[in-house]
């Protein structure tokens, strides 16, 4: 059993928080994991990504080989495409549909979405709207984690536990908002899944 995940987004969107929750849940479930991340210059509003590998066996490379990712989990739609060649032909894309536009030449949204839709298995949710509904626009990362959760090889309860651990230092209110963001994201993904993908 293994799951290789590319986490994608823009610096500041909190993809390392997603990684924290998944890493710890994996450790709790006795899995091996490696998670390569980006620090330093690229974090300043640039494209950021993290390679997250889970397995019940040994993991060698810190980087996922191109063509082997089981999932691209992206907090930003165009960023989900930046790592397209990492996805295995059987892989799933779980992405937000809310663009983060901080560049002058952001491509046409219809084109972005139609490219995403060339992937057979995909979950596209409006993370911005859902995060606001949960109580904070900053919780988009947890919305996306929720949207991906049914497709992760990890138990939901363990993910929830580490969302609590992550946000507890910043107060009960933030814990509640992020748990809600997760639940709403999970629900939105279940509603969105095309019938053929169910079951």
């Amino acid at each position: 059993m293994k799951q290789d995940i590319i986490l994608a987004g823009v610096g500041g969107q909190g993809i390392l928080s997603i990684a924290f929750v998944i890493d710890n849940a994996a450790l709790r479930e006795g899995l091996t994991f490696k998670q390569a991340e980006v620090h330093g210059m690229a974090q300043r509003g640039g494209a950021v990504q993290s390679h997250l590998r889970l397995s019940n066996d040994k993991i060698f490379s810190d980087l996922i080989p191109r063509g082997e990712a089981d999932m691209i989990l992206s907090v930003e739609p165009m960023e989900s495409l930046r790592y397209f060649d990492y996805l295995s032909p059987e892989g799933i894309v779980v992405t937000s549909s809310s663009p983060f536009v901080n560049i002058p030449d952001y491509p046409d949204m219809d084109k972005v979405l139609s490219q995403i839709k060339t992937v057979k298995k995909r979950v596209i949710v409006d993370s911005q709207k859902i995060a606001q509904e949960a109580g904070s626009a900053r919780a988009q990362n947890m919305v996306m984690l929720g949207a991906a959760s049914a497709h992760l090889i990890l138990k939901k309860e363990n993910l929830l536990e580490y969302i609590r651990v992550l946000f507890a230092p910043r107060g009960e209110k933030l814990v509640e908002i992020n748990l809600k963001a997760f639940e709403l994201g999970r629900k939105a993904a279940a509603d969105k899944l095309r019938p053929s993908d169910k079951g």
Partner: protein
Amino acid sequence: MKDEILLGDEAVALGAIHAGLSGAYSYPGTPASEIMEFLIRRSDGGKNFIASWSVNEKVAYEEALGVSFAGKRAMVSMKHVGLNVAADPFMNSAITGANGGLVVVVADDPSMHSSQNEQDSRFYAQFAQVFCFEPSNHQEAYDMTREAFDVSEELGIPVMVRLVTRLSHSRSRVQPGPPRKQNTLQYGIGKDWTLLPVNARRRFKILTEKQKELVGLADKSGFNSLELNKKNTSLGIIASGVAFNYVLENYKDQPELPSMLKISTYPLPETLVAGLVRHVERVLVVEEGYPFIEKNLRGILGLPGKTVLGKLDGHLPLTGELSPEIVRQALGMKPREKLQLDDFKLAGRPPQLCAGCPHADAYKALNKALEAYPQSNVFSDIGCYTLGALPPYNAINSCVCMGASIGMAKGGAEAGVYPSVAVIGDSTFAHSGLTPLLSAAEANTNMTVVILDNSIVAMTGGQPTFASGEGLVRMVGGLGVKRDHIRVIEPLPKNLEKNIQAFKEEFEYRGLSVVIASRECVQEVRKKKRSEIG
């Protein structure tokens, strides 16, 4: 001890703590900063051991060397180019030798994710003739750092641990061992540490005589391993560090491995290398960084009767970091099937200054003020503000190494550049800007130095600075810059006109002037607010 989830950097730090570390020093630099951040968190405010940021890597190295002189265990960590700054004490500490264990951790950055070059620190280890470990995973990062302290004390020399970005910034589980006690105070021998020629010659001889012992240690090290495939004599692989992982990744669904030598220490384990080479016809060398092992292996004359494959014959690329796919190709395996974008064109998303960043306002004013001077040049330096090279600012024309802006602006001015402007951050100024400014003040060179004082080391995540606010103004004055030409401005949109005027006045002054643009990094302001609420 409980298992921990750690970055490669943090695994090194924990290994050092458990090896009985007494003092650790560093200057922030990607990808090494997280070593010191972890140490500071675990030092309990210095009660457990000293963990401190230094003003630059050279000073950090010397502080660590002092701890080692006193018989205690010391670690100094930095990014690869930091070792250029610390090269003087590093090279000479190989001659003085170490008293308490002295470990120098250097994190290389192949592909230059956050650097100006991709120099390979293994050459430094060879240059100084010291022992070097290169871990390939987190557990090894922990274990090798522990062992590095033992080797340092056993051989009486500093020992290097070489990391690369992919390990430094990757997270995984580490199983720690039991911690051991720190050393007690025991001074070094004065005449070993006083490198007068008479002492240095004797010490250098001792160092060169130790080299055989170093190779012997490499041959015996449990971290190097040679596995011969008796049935297959056509190909053998020598791999080190994270490159070793990429080889195994590609063999994970193969029934058997070719003969493999994993190298984790330098100097090279000569007996093991010979063992592999004798067994096979072709040797593929896979290593992250420069072709260090490969060059050693080929020498000038090559290996008679054998074929060596690697970076030097184009089998693997000479620049940039490796990846599982690149190594797969070098192994002659079929590429994996992967998805491709249709005719969709991705837009690049380069890093940029944060919204509201003080540097943006400083650049806006500077650009405006310079409009009247088409012959001007702005020399710059290393920090978030280097992003001023990109649109929409296009404000700077150089970034070479820490502190270079000031020396280059002086040289430029002396060659006829006017206005010759240097732009440098507060922390880079403390690191390497004081001495060139002293030089420029002495000559009263016709140039303008702009110090962007955001009161923090921002690029690497917010470490403390040594030269900010009032202290910075006093420092600049103390170096001999005339008081009337030290101007402090506040880079804010509402001050734009005032600031343009201030710059213009200083360009018009025919001598050295310093403009300090002082406003806190917005990320820091945000962090402080958050911690006040929390």
